[in-house]
């Protein structure tokens, strides 16, 4: 049987990227500003993490305008939602295994 640590996705495992996907899992669309506020990130930092996730096909980013104001809407792709679930499952399994060994 494969050790759960092998199922961990290195792209997703980074704390902020995991946070982004966790937020997107609960909503159908999320504004850039909302993500920034909830995850307590700077514009640059959030943009960087979103680019990484977009390159991997885990999120989709749409730039729109609300009046004259630009707006960035982020959504998790089907692949992104699946990857998050698999990653969380692997993490939980890993924690359980370590917990058993500590006893």
């Amino acid at each position, binding site marked *: 049987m494969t050790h759960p640590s092998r199922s961990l996705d290195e792209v997703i495992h*980074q704390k902020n990227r995991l946070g982004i996907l966790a937020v997107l899992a*609960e*909503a*159908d*669309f*999320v*504004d850039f500003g*909302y993500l920034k506020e909830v995850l307590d990130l700077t514009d640059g930092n959030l943009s960087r993490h979103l680019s990484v996730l977009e390159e991997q096909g885990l999120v989709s980013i749409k730039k729109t305008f609300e009046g004259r104001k630009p707006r960035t809407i982020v959504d998790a792709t089907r692949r992104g939602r699946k990857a998050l679930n698999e990653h969380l499952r692997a993490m939980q399994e*890993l*924690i359980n295994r370590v917990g058993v060994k500590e006893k």
Partner: protein
Amino acid sequence: MEEPLTPSSELLEELARIQRKTKLDVRGESWRYLAVWSVVFLGAFFSSFLSDLAGWYWVIGVPLGYLGMYLAYRNVNDDRVGAKSWPYAVTGIGIGIVNMVASFVLPDEAIVVAVWVVLGVGFAVLSWIDRQPLAAALFAALSLLALLLGLTTEDTFQLYPVLAMIFTLITAATSFGLWLWARRS
């Protein structure tokens, strides 16, 4: 430079906290539509005592319900985060169409039960879309109860106010439960 890794258990707790907050921001106001419709169902209960108006009640009640929802949700949602509104709209329209078709093709004694069966299924679907599995199960059970009562009761016209009251109470209680969840989270 990447930030240092956080221990997995702490990370999972933090993720759960973030997801709770997002869920609350997206679905924390779901109690409102149930509160509105519990009032509409209560209206159906009272209208059942006015035999000439019972059938016509829905012609007024449904648009009033939609108006109530519009007023209840005006300016309450954070538009930076949310769920797609079309699945709710499609389900709402679907409930209306199915009940309208049923009112043309079914005899009166069947319509008085069918309307509640359809509403139960419709609200179960709405709750499921809203990621409220308990509420979805409750409405599905309510729909089944209406169907079973309809099949086993001879005078279905007497069943109508009973089902209206059951739906009023269950919808109001579910709304209150969701309101409580939103306030306590």
